[in-house]
Every structure is written in structure tokens, then in C-alpha cells.
């Protein structure tokens, strides 16, 4: 008997403009002990299927047809009390968006312990112990200290691990993991995937793993389902799918996987994407608003950005007296420079301070010590008003796209606002045109403008976030995990767009990512961070071919070796 059976599932999102069908007729099985990979286009409906299984579709979503069986029992259309017994205990769920999944007002401990208590009969003391164990297992350092903290004190990757720990802590029969490792560096990712694999094999737990990372698919899953535009277009064993894909979308997907072995000028694209229903409108940057941007005066120095001995610590424990407070050194004496027109990559362990340094540069945190120089001007110590002229030039794509968008503004407004505010376009019509174009460039289509952030899939939100950052026509762009939630084909499209902008406008970028192949394709120089320190800075090729630091070596070793597997039967369009 299959652990989970999904039959002809159909899911709709009604809206005042009509009913959008997010999932058509999806059917698949998960056997005990099996890991089923779910890959597909961003916005294809992967998360939606997962949500539907545990009856947690976000309103107004509804299951319009089909059935779901768990261990032979029908669990679709169960009354609320019955389905609640299944959640957690039978099905553990890892949401795609770890940042917003955690209750901001409860400590990590409270959130873990309550889950354990709700799903098993242990004492509070035992539950606490178990919570610590779980954190340990997902690789959170110093769990005894960390467990008392609140979500906002965690880095993106750490929060993701907490969510995983919570989902696994209730020892479910089925795990639905929606892109569980997007924010994790390869070593931790490896650790987590091993953990899940172990559970599946030892306890006959079933798992649905939604991911964009073909490396993960190749290494972990037993079978793979490929989704495109709400349909499962292809399903088979991992071998089959990766080595001999049949559906054109699957083919294009695999061909778009960035290569970790060589650096290419541009990401490979496949015709299918361009002929597909949601087409990226081809734009010619050179005669488009985006490409015409004001050209900035060259700086006298040979670098655009200079980070000089920046330190920043966070308070982790308040106390009545100052001296009893505890701190964590998030950024520890970090210095580097970024030349105009170059892309500087930042890799490193989750929680090593990458996002923090990005925020310091963006002016969101004031460093405890050290200096940030931008275009020859010192930014640290400026008042908000003095800083404003630089704001537009220095943009940031946040690690968590969802929470960085105002939930009460529709997408068109979100993107139009900076254009309007900085008076980058002359008329309302022009603004609308530009917003539409930007939405097209990122593959969402003009019509998406009237929708609100919560109506999008994780990847779609990430693309909105990028579109918004581009709307100011920045000179310097900080990208904190900009493509982690994107399928490789969309990712290729977007990264190509960024590259074009770079060529045309000499856009400078600080690129934070865990995806080493992407880093290799995109960056000119790379810095490696660990424990708040910048431990190595080198030219890309140099770093990949002859890493100096032992941690860097370790990272590179763990990089999924996928190239051999996937590209055998494929022609690569270059």
C-alpha cells in the first residue's frame, strides 16, 4: 500500500478576475521509505500541492477536485479536527519560506518543545532535551544558547534549519519538504539531506522533496516528478529523468543547470522557455529605459566600494546592567573592495555574517567600528538625509523576498514606487510601461501587477524583488541569495539579464549565494566567510582551481558533482 496517494488533484485560486487553476489533475504516489523529488518551473504549483495535502491552502485556494489518501485512508475533505491529528504526527511539513514560518514572538525552544509535546507523550523535560538534540542534528552551533533566542536573531539559513528541526521533531510518517535547503551552504545542506535520507531508509518514512537544485535531485531522490504550468508533465526514476528526459520542459531544465566545471559567458538557454506560454519578452537592454540609465561619474579610486575593518556585534541577551549582556560577533573585522563593473561573490557558512555585512553596506545597520566607502564617499556616520543621494545608487535584493515587500501594496505599486519617487520617468504612462516591462523581464507578465505579494509563489516573489531593485537603475546591487528559489531555467534568464545590465551599464554587484556553480558563473572575485571573518578573497577561477583555505577546499569538495550525470544525452546550446 502506498504511503501517500494523490489522485487527480485540481486546485483553484478564484479571484475577482476569474478562477486561476494552479494545479491540474495531478496524480502521484509516495511509497514508504521513498524520496520523491518534485521539480519544475517556479510558480508551477509545487508548493500548492504540498499545502493541499495537509489542507492548508492559503485562502482563497480550494481543492476543486481529486482525492488524497494517506496509508489508504482518504484525508482530503476531512473535518478540521481529524486533519489536525494528521498534521505533524503523520505528515511533517517544511514550508518554503522559513523566514515567515517561525512565530516572531516565541523563542526557538518554545516552538520546538510545543511541537514535540503536541505529537508525542513525553515530559516537558524530555521534550526540551529532544529539542536540543534536533538543533544539534540540523547543525546549529551552540544549541543551548541558541535555543533561547528568537527567530529574528537567526540568520536565514539557521531559521531554515529550525523549521526543518521542527518538522522532523514530531517523527512523522511522511515529510513534505518544500525547498528545505535553499539558504544552506553545501556542507550543511549535505548534513540535512543525509538526515532526511537516513530517516527514510531507517524508519520507512516517505518524503516529497521540492527543490530546484538538480544536484540534490541527483543525489537524494528515488523518483522525480516534473511540473510545468500546473501539470505533472513527467514522472520517473531519478536516473530516467536526469539522463533521458522526455518532455521538452524537462530537457530545457536540465540543460540550463549551471555548470560548475567551466565558466561560461552567459547561461545557456533553451528554446522551450522562449516558446513557452509565459514567455520572457526579449528586450534589448541598449535601447530600453533600463539600459539607458544615467551614467555615473567615474570615481577617482579604482574601486567603487570599500569595506574597511568593519565589525558588528549583536546583543543576544539583555540584562539590567550593560556588562551582563551577551553578544555575538556577527561581522568581525571584515575588509574588501569591489571594483566598478565587477561582481564580487560572497560565500560561506550559514550564519557566518554574509547578510549582516550586506545590510551594513546598505546602511541598515551601523557598524560598531570600521568604515564603508562608496564612490569615494564615506557612508558610515552619515545622517539619513545625507545618505539619501546614495540610496538609489546602492540597491539590495533581500534574502527573504516575501517579508521585504509591503503586504498591502500591489506588485505594480511596489515596483513603480521607486521610479516615481526618484523621478526616473516622466509620465504615468511611461511608468506603467516600465513596470510592465520589468515584470516581463523577470517572467511574470504584465498582468501580475494587480496582484499582492501573498498571491505569488516563492520564486515569483524573488523575481519581483529583483525587479524592484532594478527599478531604481542602481549602480551597485547587493544580491542576497537572489535566485535560491528559482528553477534553473528562470534563474538562467535572470542572471543573464543581470549580466547584460552589467555589460551595458557597468553595474557592480555584491553577490551572496550558496550555489557554487552559480557563483562560478557570475562572479569575478569571491570572498569566503566563516564565523564573521572573511577568510579568503580570490579571483573566481583561482578560487575554484586552487583554494587556499581549508574551509574553502571543504566547500568545493562537497559541491554536488552533477555534470557527468546530466549532460550526457544533451546537446548544450551555447
Amino acid at each position, binding site marked *: 500500500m502506498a504511503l501517500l496517494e494523490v489522485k487527480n488533484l485540481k486546485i483553484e485560486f478564484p479571484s*475577482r478576475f476569474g478562477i486561476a487553476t494552479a494545479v491540474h489533475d495531478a496524480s502521484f504516489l509516495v511509497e514508504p521509505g521513498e524520496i520523491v523529488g518534485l521539480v519544475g518551473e517556479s510558480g508551477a504549483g509545487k508548493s500548492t500541492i504540498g499545502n493541499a495535502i495537509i489542507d492548508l491552502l492559503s485562502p482563497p485556494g480550494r481543492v476543486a477536485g481529486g482525492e488524497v489518501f494517506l496509508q489508504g485512508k482518504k484525508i482530503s475533505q476531512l473535518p478540521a479536527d481529524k486533519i489536525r491529528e494528521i498534521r505533524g504526527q503523520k505528515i511533517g511539513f517544511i514550508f518554503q519560506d522559513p523566514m515567515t514560518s517561525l512565530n516572531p514572538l516565541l523563542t526557538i525552544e518554545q516552538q520546538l518543545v510545543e511541537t514535540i509535546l503536541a505529537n508525542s507523550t513525553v515530559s516537558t523535560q524530555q521534550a526540551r532535551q529532544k529539542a536540543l538534540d534536533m538543533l544539534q542534528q540540523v547543525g546549529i552551533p551552540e544549541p543551548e544558547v541558541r535555543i533561547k533566542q528568537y527567530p529574528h536573531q537567526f540568520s536565514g539559513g539557521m531559521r531554515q534549519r529550525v523549521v526543518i528541526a521542527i518538522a522532523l521533531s514530531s517523527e512523522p510518517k511522511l515529510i513534505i519538504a518544500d525547498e528545505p535547503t535553499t539558504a544552506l551552504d553545501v556542507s550543511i545542506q549535505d548534513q540535512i539531506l543525509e538526515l532526511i535520507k537516513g530517516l527514510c531508509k531507517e524508519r520507512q518514512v516517505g518524503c516529497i522533496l521540492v527543490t530546484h537544485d538538480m544536484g540534490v535531485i541527483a543525489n537524494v531522490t528515488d523518483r522525480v516528478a516534473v511540473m510545468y504550468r500546473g501539470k505533472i508533465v513527467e514522472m520517473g526514476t531519478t536516473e530516467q529523468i536526469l539522463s533521458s528526459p522526455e518532455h521538452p520542459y524537462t530537457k530545457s531544465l536540465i540543460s540550463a543547470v549551471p555548470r560548475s566545471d567551466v565558466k561560461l559567458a552567459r547561461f545557456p538557454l533553451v528554446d522551450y522557455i522562449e516558446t513557452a506560454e509565459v514567455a520572457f519578452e526579449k528586450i534589448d537592454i541598449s535601447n530600453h529605459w533600463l539600459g539607458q540609465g544615467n551614467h555615473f561619474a567615474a570615481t577617482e579610486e579604482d574601486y567603487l566600494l570599500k569595506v574597511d575593518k568593519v565589525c558588528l556585534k549583536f546583543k543576544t541577551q539583555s540584562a539590567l546592567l550593560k556588562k551582563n549582556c551577551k553578544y555575538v560577533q556577527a561581522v568581525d573585522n571584515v575588509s574588501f573592495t569591489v571594483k566598478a563593473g565587477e561582481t564580487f561573490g560572497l560565500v560561506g557558512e550559514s550564519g557566518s555574517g554574509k547578510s549582516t555585512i550586506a545590510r551594513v553596506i546598505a546602511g541598515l545597520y551601523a557598524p560598531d567600528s570600521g568604515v564603508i566607502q562608496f564612490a569615494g564617499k564615506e557612508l558610515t556616520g552619515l545622517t539619513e538625509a545625507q545618505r539619501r543621494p546614495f540610496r538609489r545608487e546602492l540597491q539590495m535584493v533581500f534574502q527573504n523576498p516575501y517579508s521585504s515587500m509591503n503586504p498591502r501594496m500591489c506588485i505594480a505599486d511596489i515596483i513603480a514606487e521607486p521610479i516615481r*519617487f526618484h523621478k526616473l520617468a516622466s509620465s504615468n504612462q511611461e511608468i506603467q510601461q516600465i513596470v510592465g516591462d520589468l515584470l516581463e523581464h523577470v517572467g511574470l507578465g504584465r498582468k501580475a501587477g494587480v496582484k499582492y505579494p501573498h498571491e505569488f509563489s516563492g520564486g515569483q516573489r524573488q523575481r519581483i524583488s529583483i525587479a524592484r531593485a532594478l527599478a531604481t537603475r542602481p549602480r551597485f546591487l547587493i544580491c542576497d541569495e537572489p535566485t535560491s528559489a528559482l528553477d534553473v531555467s528562470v534563474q538562467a534568464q535572470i542572471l543573464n539579464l543581470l549580466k547584460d545590465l552589467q555589460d551595458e551599464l557597468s553595474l557592480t554587484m555584491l553577490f551572496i549565494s550558496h550555489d557554487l556553480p552559480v557563483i562560478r558563473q557570475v562572479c569575478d572575485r569571491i570572498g569566503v566567510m566563516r564565523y564573521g571573518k572573511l577568510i579568503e578573497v580570490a579571483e573566481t577561477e583561482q578560487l575554484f582551481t586552487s583554494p587556499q583555505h581549508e574551509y574553502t577546499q571543504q566547500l568545493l569538495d562537497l559541491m554536488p558533482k552533477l555534470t557527468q550525470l546530466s549532460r550526457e544525452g544533451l546537446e548544450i546550446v551555447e
Partner: protein
Amino acid sequence: MSTSTSAWQRFRNSDLLFYFKKDKVAIGAAIIFLIMVIAAVTAPLTAPFNPYDLASIDVMDSTLPPVWQGGEADERFLLGTDNQGRDMLSTILYGTRTSLIIGLFAVLLQSVLGIAIGLAAGYYGGRIESFLMRLADVQLSFSTLMVAIVVSTFFQAKLGTEAFHEVAIYLLVIIIGISEWPQFARTIRASVLAEKEKEYVQAAQVMGFGGLRIMLRHILPNCLPPIFVIATVQVANAIMSEAALSFLGLGMPETTPSLGSLIRSGFEYLLSGSWWITIIPGLVLVVLVLAINLLGDWLRDVLNPKLYKEI
């Protein structure tokens, strides 16, 4: 011209109108509210008597029950008369006007003041915040009564009693408006403190938007739900405050009845049998407040895109 039509078109296409047309409760509340506003505005035309015209009042007609009560009832007075012999129906029509003006405008003033102060305090923090919040403390401990004393004595001295009565209603708006802003300010400030830590605000800062824009366009809409609640509740409060102030000789003259003062003065009669003096205006107030609250609830829901709305 073209912009105005497009604004109109935009309104016609807006979610607001769309969901409004779908929501029976909202339509009902709006209709009732409109009827009351119209009845109040046109009181001089529709009311059978003019309760401000003292010559038309006869004490011997006082406390007559509504016509359906029979007994002493007099058919001239559909809803009976109050303790002075004023026709209840006319008095309510005129009184609703006074109360509506005070209720709506005073709350508008309160909320504008409170929101502005609360936003500024929450967003800028530091000294500005301390100053504004202590100002709120001062204001709170003084409350309506003290403000009323200060403002009305000032104007009374400036204008003399007679002219004072002419402007009394505006003064009441100002008094109640000034004295109750801290409610809004503290609430808004609290929300702002929480909201400003959120990433979307940081994103707006990175975009380089000015403080004012971030406050009004980003933070404020996300702080509105409690404000809607307080504002709708405050309408009733303002209407009753007016009555209390008038009693203290600091508001409307005795001879211009408002809903609040009717309810207030009628309560002595409630237990001696003349229930209509209190109950009827009370019902009018309840319906009015209910309509405003329903509209407020509806608006709050519509403004939250995340809430699922019946289509």
C-alpha cells in the same frame, strides 16, 4: 479633465467598489448611514417642529408618550415629547445633526492628530518620542474636561456668551479632537515600533524613500486595523462626551438638544416610565454607531489584501 475621468474610472475598477457591491452588509450599513446623514442634514425641511424655536414649545406638552402608546399620546408628536415638551422626532432629527458633526469631525481630528504624532514618535524614536509620549501623558491626565475648560473659557472671553453658542459646535469638535488624540497616538506608536523592524520597511529605506513617505505609505497602512477599531468606537464616545461637556456648561447650550444630551437627560425619566425620552434616541445612536462600525470593519477587511473575501 482627462485625469479626473481616469481617476473616476480607476475608482470604478477599484477593489473597493468591487467588494462593496458584493457585500450586502456593507451596502446595508452604508444605506442606513446615508439615510441618517441625509435626515440629519435636511432636518429643517423634514422635521415637523423646530426644537430650537422655543416659542413653539409648550411645557404642558411634556413627556407625552409616542402615539402607539395610546393614553395621553398626542398625534402631533409621533414619537412623543421630552421633558420640555419638544417633539421627540424633530429633536432627534436635529440632534442627530449635531451629534454626527461632532462625532465624525472630532474623531477625524483626533485620528489625524494622533496618527501624525504616533507615527512621528514611533518612527523617529529617541527624544522626539519621549517628548511626544510625555505630551500624551499630560494630555491624557487632563482629558476632555480640562481641555474644554481651557478652550471654552478662552473663546467665551473672546466672543461673549452669545457668539460663543454660535461656534460651540466647532469648539466641541476641537475640544474632543484635541483631548482624545493620545489614544490613537499610543496605539499607532506601538504598531510602528513593531512594523519598523520589519524587512519591508528596511527595503523602503534602501530604496531611499524619505521618512514621511515610509511612514505614510508603508508603515501606516499596516498599522491601520486597530485604528479603525478605535476610531469607530470613538465616534460613540465623542457623541457622549459632547453631552457630558454640555452638562458642565462647556458645550452646546441647553436649548439645542443633541442625541447625547437627550440620552443623558432622559435617563432620569427612564425609570419613572417615560422610557421613550432615552430609548428612542438611544436606539438611533446604536444604529448609527453600528452602521459606522460595520462600515469600518468592512473597510478594514477590504484594505487587507490577505483576507479572503467572498466573491
